[in-house]
């Protein structure tokens, strides 16, 4: 590989105009050579996106602020070059695929970039064909982008960038909003691009598991580069990663904590883990495993009355789309259920029946003994709270107090009662004392908590959470899930839609897998997660530690459980 420098950051510092504390980037030095595949990881606010925007000049031309140091990309001094000129050198893909697409059909979307660069029309046509091949969108040539799935949209967004033949491609959290199937599609493209040796690829990611394919892994925190090295070396820095707030791989974490295996010897993947496990002469303790199963069974027995009962539920949308094809399902008081399945499988449609947002087109839904058809969303809403995926779709008040008080106020509580409930809800989400703050100036994790509090203040029995951890970093995800766990302990029944498998394995009691409007699998998390192959049919992959334990013949759900069950040495 040539050693030609594609990207050079020299002492780069940047502070956004309206940023109060600290800098987004602080004295960053970085060199990336031609053809490299670099992965960047770090907690929210580490400066990853800012760095990406510095590469094509959105910083400082679009986002203004205090800029010092130098960025040179393929010979261009970025600070002195317009973004539209940089676009020829470097293509930037954003997380929010909805806002990146603006054309009437997919072909025109891909044509937009080359059109701007005055590429001849015939050439544009051949590039369009090439892109459909590269981003795997055959048969979608004349579709409107809005009719595509999330994964297809993001692939189209990537295609629309690649069609200008940039020498560098930078993707800023391209998979965050995607389901597992969508993620696979993006990683496939990344691998294809990496195979083409002249493309330099930079990806900002949260997914630790896919990082092994990269040439380099960079960890960032508070505007600085903390570690820069080969992925296999960086991933063995389990403790450092945990400190930074990045999820460490489970397998090395287990070996480090359980056996104190030295850094250079740490296995990374489940298969390597098995080999090491045998080499160490360890085995799984039958009795400990039985006691875990016993605990699952005890929990099962402790659930209360049936709160939600669904029978023969079908839903056909006005456009004729059959989203649900006969679902039978019930939720008992105190349960913690996770719903899995790719986008469009019908999970969201299903839960929207639980609080009366949607009505069955066949079958029925009973909430606390009442048919949702015979009551209103206002009444059902008292029993079933629904936290939407994007907190910004529900926050509207100037102060946290007003936001959380909205629901009890509208339900006619008196002032004293409202005060009590706001206090109680904020305490439950760990945000006491923020009553007078402006929710819009909070971080996404905090806004998500306020959204939960504003649902809690209605004191619902059941809380539905739609992808509560999406867009949060590892530490925020943990905090969010600890909160949900606490709510469950305090007596709330939880129904959660998610794509994050480790969250399910560590927190959910039960799992339902939905595919094509039907329930494919249902049972305790341990039961469902013991079927690796069947899950794979719904494009679901168990977390590494679960996979490794399955290979060993007994299903455990977390690193701690595996430690508990490990015998010998």
């Amino acid at each position, binding site marked *: 590989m040539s050693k030609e420098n594609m990207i050079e950051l020299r002492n780069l510092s940047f502070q956004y105009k309206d940023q109060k504390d600290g800098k987004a980037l602080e004295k960053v030095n970085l060199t990336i050579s031609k053809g490299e595949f670099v992965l960047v990881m770090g907690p929210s606010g580490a400066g990853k996106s800012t760095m990406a925007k510095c590469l094509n000049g959105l910083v400082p031309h*679009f986002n203004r602020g205090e800029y010092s140091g130098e960025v040179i990309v393929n010979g261009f001094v970025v600070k002195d070059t317009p973004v539209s000129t940089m676009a020829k050198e470097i293509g930037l893909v954003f997380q929010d695929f909805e*806002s990146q697409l603006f054309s009437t059909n997919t072909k025109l979307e891909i044509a937009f970039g080359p059109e701007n660069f*005055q590429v001849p029309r015939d050439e544009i046509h051949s590039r369009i064909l090439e892109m459909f091949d590269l981003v795997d969108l055959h048969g979608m040539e004349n579709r409107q982008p809005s009719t595509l799935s999330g994964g297809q949209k993001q692939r189209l967004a990537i295609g629309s*960038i690649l069609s200008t033949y940039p020498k560098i491609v930078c993707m800023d959290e391209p998979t965050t909003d995607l389901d597992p199937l969508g993620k696979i599609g993006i990683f496939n493209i990344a691998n294809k691009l990496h195979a083409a040796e002249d493309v330099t690829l930079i990806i900002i990611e949260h997914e630790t598991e896919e990082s092994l394919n990269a040439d380099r892994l960079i960890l960032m925190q508070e505007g600085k580069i903390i570690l820069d090295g080969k992925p296999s070396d960086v991933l063995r820095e389990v403790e450092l990663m945990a400190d930074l707030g990045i999820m460490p791989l489970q397998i090395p974490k287990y070996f480090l904590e359980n056996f104190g295996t030295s850094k250079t010897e740490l296995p990374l993947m489940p298969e390597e883990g098995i080999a090491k496990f045998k080499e160490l002469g360890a085995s799984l303790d039958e009795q400990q495993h039985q006691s875990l199963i016993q605990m699952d069974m005890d929990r099962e027995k402790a659930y209360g009355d049936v709160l939600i009962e669904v029978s023969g539920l079908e839903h056909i949308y006005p456009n004729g789309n059959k989203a649900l094809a006969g679902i039978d399902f019930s939720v008992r008081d105190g349960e913690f259920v996770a719903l899995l399945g790719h986008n469009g499988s019908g999970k969201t449609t299903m839960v929207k029946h639980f609080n009366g947002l949607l009505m069955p087109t066949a079958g029925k839904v009973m909430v606390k003994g009442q048919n949702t058809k015979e009551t209103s969303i206002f009444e059902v809403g008292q029993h079933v709270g629904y936290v939407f995926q994007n907190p910004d779709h529900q926050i509207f008040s100037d102060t946290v107090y007003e936001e959380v008080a909205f629901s009890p106020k509208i339900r006619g509580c008196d002032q004293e009662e409202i005060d009590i409930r706001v206090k109680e809800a904020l305490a439950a989400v760990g945000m006491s004392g923020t009553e007078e703050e402006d929710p819009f100036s909070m971080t996404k994790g905090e806004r998500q908590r306020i959204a939960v509090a504003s649902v809690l203040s209605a004191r619902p029995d059941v809380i539905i959470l739609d992808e509560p951890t999406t867009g949060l970093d590892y530490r925020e995800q943990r905090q969010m899930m600890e909160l949900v766990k606490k709510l469950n302990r305090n007596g709330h029944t939880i129904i959660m839609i998610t794509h994050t498998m480790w969250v399910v394995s560590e927190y959910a009691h039960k799992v339902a897998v939905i595919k094509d409007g039907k329930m494919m699998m249902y049972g305790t998390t341990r039961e469902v997660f013991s079927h690796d192959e069947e899950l794979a049919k719904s494009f679901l992959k168990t977390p590494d530690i679960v996979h490794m334990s399955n290979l060993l013949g007994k299903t455990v759900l977390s690193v701690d459980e595996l430690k508990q069950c490990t015998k010998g040495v």
Partner: protein
Amino acid sequence: MEMFLYLDNDTFLHRLDPRTKMLVMLATFVVALMFYSLNTLLILSAVVLIYGLVGKTLSNLKRIRFILLMIFLFSVVLWSLTYGGEPKLLGPISLEGILYGIVIGIKFDIMIIAGMIFLSSTKVEEISLGLVKIKVPYRGAFAFATAIRMVPMIVATSYTISQAQRSRGLDLDSGNLVERAKKYIPLLIPTIISVIRGTNVFAMALESKGFGYSEDRTNYLQISIKKGDLLVIFMALVVIAISVYYRFII
């Protein structure tokens, strides 16, 4: 939910040049605004509907039927009560007033329908390209086309937001007018904020794709005036000419 108004069919109407369709829309507006005769407007309505039918675009009217109906009813009620005229039927309501209300209602509705048929049969890119060809600067044309594109996106966002707020107990259907208006605040603010956030990414994505790299750009989409266009243009010009002749010269 369907986001765009454009209906992707391959009809005579869709194949027409966007400039031709703009002229037809202009002709419709000219006739609708200049004449107050019920017969003329009914003939115009029939022509416009047949024109829309050729492009299989009338199914989109279902989406705005409520607005069309409300405009029509408001017009009839308002003018019946305020127009005066003869013969009196009941209180201030007169036959002339009712007829005038109907005429005004049709005027507005037919202009909206003509606009809807245009948007249903013309891609946003064709609109901007058409505007460029009639010498509107590209940035202006693109901004105009983007504004059209934004409307359905805002509708889709506000739909999600209304579901979120209804789940929290927001009940839009009760209370008097002032109370109800207040209830829209929980919908408006998140919608505005989401749109602002979205447009921010949109602007960055545009720049990242080289928007504004040079004054000239290639157009992958090609439009040209064909035989069918000439025929339609001729007819539209004749209609405009006759209208002007009757209205101002005779």
